[in-house]
């Protein structure tokens, strides 16, 4: 297989450039993931930089742009890819080195939506009660792994990463808006109710299309918007 990988070392290069690597198909097996191929390429060139950790799609480290689509390399089967694979860093955020981007803005947007439960104070002898139906509403939002595949594929985020919260942060915001234990629902909605925050989303669905966990941030944002209209 052929891998065309975007390289950039700020100590040497003025701009990113593409480097072509070849991997002999005999080195690869039918069930390899893209990450396995990258590990083999790193044996050829130990300076090749990408993040990875859990290797099973739960830590969210290894988001990258593969043939035009943001994916996690550890759960992207090579068999899904053509013989020529073009790998770039996820777009829209500064490149640190090769496929590693600076995600500070992305994390800041997440922090800014106050992604933590704010509930009635309760002593440690008791649990908050929550019905299975109430709990089921959190399915599809709490599973986010903060890989950034969604936000870095969103043109609204590309334009205004400092203003538009982006799909990942809005998904987190919606997770707390719908959590029956949280009591700050109205304040949360008011904070999100601005043209540059939630309403900069135009629902082009890039986020949902790119989510490696199969989540649907676009729908969560839609529901946030309708809750805002109804509640405030």
């Amino acid at each position, binding site marked *: 297989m052929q891998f065309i990988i975007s390289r950039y070392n700020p100590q040497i290069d003025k701009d990113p450039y593409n480097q072509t690597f070849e991997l002999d198909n005999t080195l690869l097996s039918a069930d390899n993931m893209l990450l396995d191929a990258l590990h083999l390429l790193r044996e050829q060139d*130990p300076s090749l930089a990408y993040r990875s*950790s*859990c290797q099973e799609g739960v*830590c969210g480290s290894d988001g990258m742009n593969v043939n035009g689509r943001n994916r996690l390399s550890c759960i992207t089967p090579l068999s899904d890819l053509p013989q020529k694979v073009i790998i770039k860093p996820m777009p829209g955020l500064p490149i640190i080195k090769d496929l590693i981007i600076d995600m500070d803005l992305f994390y800041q947007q997440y922090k800014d939506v106050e992604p*933590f439960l704010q509930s009635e104070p309760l002593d440690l002898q008791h*649990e908050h009660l929550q019905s299975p139906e109430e*709990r089921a509403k959190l399915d599809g939002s709490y*599973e986010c792994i903060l890989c950034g595949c969604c936000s870095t594929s969103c043109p609204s985020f590309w334009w205004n990463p400092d203003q538009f919260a982006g799909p990942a942060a809005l998904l987190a915001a919606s997770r*707390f808006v719908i959590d029956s234990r949280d009591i700050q629902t109205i304040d949360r909605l008011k904070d999100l109710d601005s043209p540059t925050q939630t309403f900069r989303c135009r629902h082009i669905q890039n986020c949902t299309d790119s989510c490696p966990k199969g989540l649907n941030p676009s729908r969560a944002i839609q529901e946030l918007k309708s809750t805002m209209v109804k509640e405030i």
Partner: protein
Amino acid sequence: MNLSGNFPIEFYDALVIGAGGAGMRCALKLTEEGHKIAMVSKVFPTRSHTVAAQGGINAALGNVTPDKWQWHMYDTIKGSDYLGDQDAIEFMCQEAAEIVRELEHFGVPFSRLENGKIYQRAFGGQSQNYGEEQAYRTCAAADRTGHAILHSLYQQNIRLGTTIYDEYYALDLLKTPKGEIGGILVMNIHDGAYKILQSPHTLLATGGAGQVFRNNTNASINTGDGLGMVLRAGLPLQDMEFWQFHPTGVAGKGMLISEAVRGEGGKLRNALGDAFMEKYAPKVKDLASRDVVSRAIAIEVKEGRGCGPDKDYVLLDISHIPEEVITERLPGIRDISQTFLGIDPVKEPIHVFPTCHYMMGGIPTNIQGQVVSPDDSGEQKVVPGLYAIGECACVSVHGANRLGGNSLLDIVVFGRKAALTISETLKLQGSNQNGIDLNLHTIRQRLQRWQKRNEVSADTSVQIDSVIQIKKSLQQIMDTGCGVFRDQQTMQQAFHDLQEIQVRLDNVCLTDFNDVFNLERLAGLELENLVAIAFATVASALARTESRGAHSRVDYTERDDQAWLKHTLYFQEEHRLEYKAVNLQPKHHATFEPKPRVY
């Protein structure tokens, strides 16, 4: 990179090294108490390996079946094959209910029962009334409990504004002129710059080291960095012969398939279709302790009843469980099975085989989270300034074998406890470190060593060694020499092979000398820790001439309490071993006397 000049110094009340569940629970408490702390992590906090924990966290809430912390304590001690310290286990089980409710208050989206309480499932080795009916004790957020807990703890740290150095790598502990631990040297992975973090309290929460084995469920970051630091500081590691092989890793790959699958009714079957656990654990069958199930699978395969063309795995069958239960309770497992095996477990069984999962041993500590080490007379003394919690520590609550659901509990219980210990000391003594110079001699030498460059050889046929190749060899040696079953000969061979690995490690050179995200240098530094841990493992295992918990020897098949009801302490210098007594004196409950372990 300038190694000769002075490194910049920052002062803190306390340092937390590692941002998994243990580190984040600890940092949260310290920040809440108003201390100036820094949490250091080589990855962004939610990338830490706690995120991959699946099945749940044990607490005797009694939401599903009647329960008491005393029953949980008994099960944990029995599970540990009586090597766990009974005072520590008692403390952990007593704290469990409150700490799980606290997690719920932090926002953890636990699955729920019809009455609105936290859902609890059956897990291996858990019983009611000291060994009778199966207990339902494992509190779960579907099969993503670790993810749910880690993210909630990170969110709480956001709430309090904890100072986090993420993508900083902790290199080594730094000592004061008096020999106390006075801080740590860290490297910013983004630009390779070094910095001294100085503090009277340094806490290690660096997690496990499953990367010493080739087949493992662990993240690539699990390289035992804290353990390597402790060994280099001349301190011991405890019980390093005890590694848990999880019975159900994805065959040939290693990803974890949670015990929750068997808790929800999954059955292990061999090539003949037999539910073989009935033979090995007639009473609790598939929900026996992990060491027991792993050995059973290994025996089935060894005796030719494995599945597939190479007869090298067994089947985990959940096809009899209704699809809606799988969707609600085991969605992550279904996902992993489909992604890595192309198998939908609703229709077809999952291919599984035991894979290295968890390190029961680690840095010896007391219940307060303080690191302890024997003095010249053999008495266990607190190491001033140093703490350890979570998988990198050995309190010891897991002894020779950990129960499923007890690791998430361990990290939060001792994370909170260690924070309280540090906080109380800070309130009494303050944290003035001005004027104390830390010794940098050894660390400068270590860093200098990685500056070494290969002589350029004209002969291109000479294969130049690399960090990656050495790591692969190391993992192969440990898989072969120190796996589910062990004996004198294979371990002796492994020890011999490790000495060759050490020579290769001493001589290997890097090819990349840039400073920005130099992952080759990082891997080299990590490899030093892995090799040190492999030596600790094999040396400790060779000496222990008995079978206990996860340490299973074909040449010494019985547990020998007379000779071996004691903890191993391994020191790096000359691979020296010492031993210390197991604590059999809990505070609020009578001693559980060791007896034969039957499931």
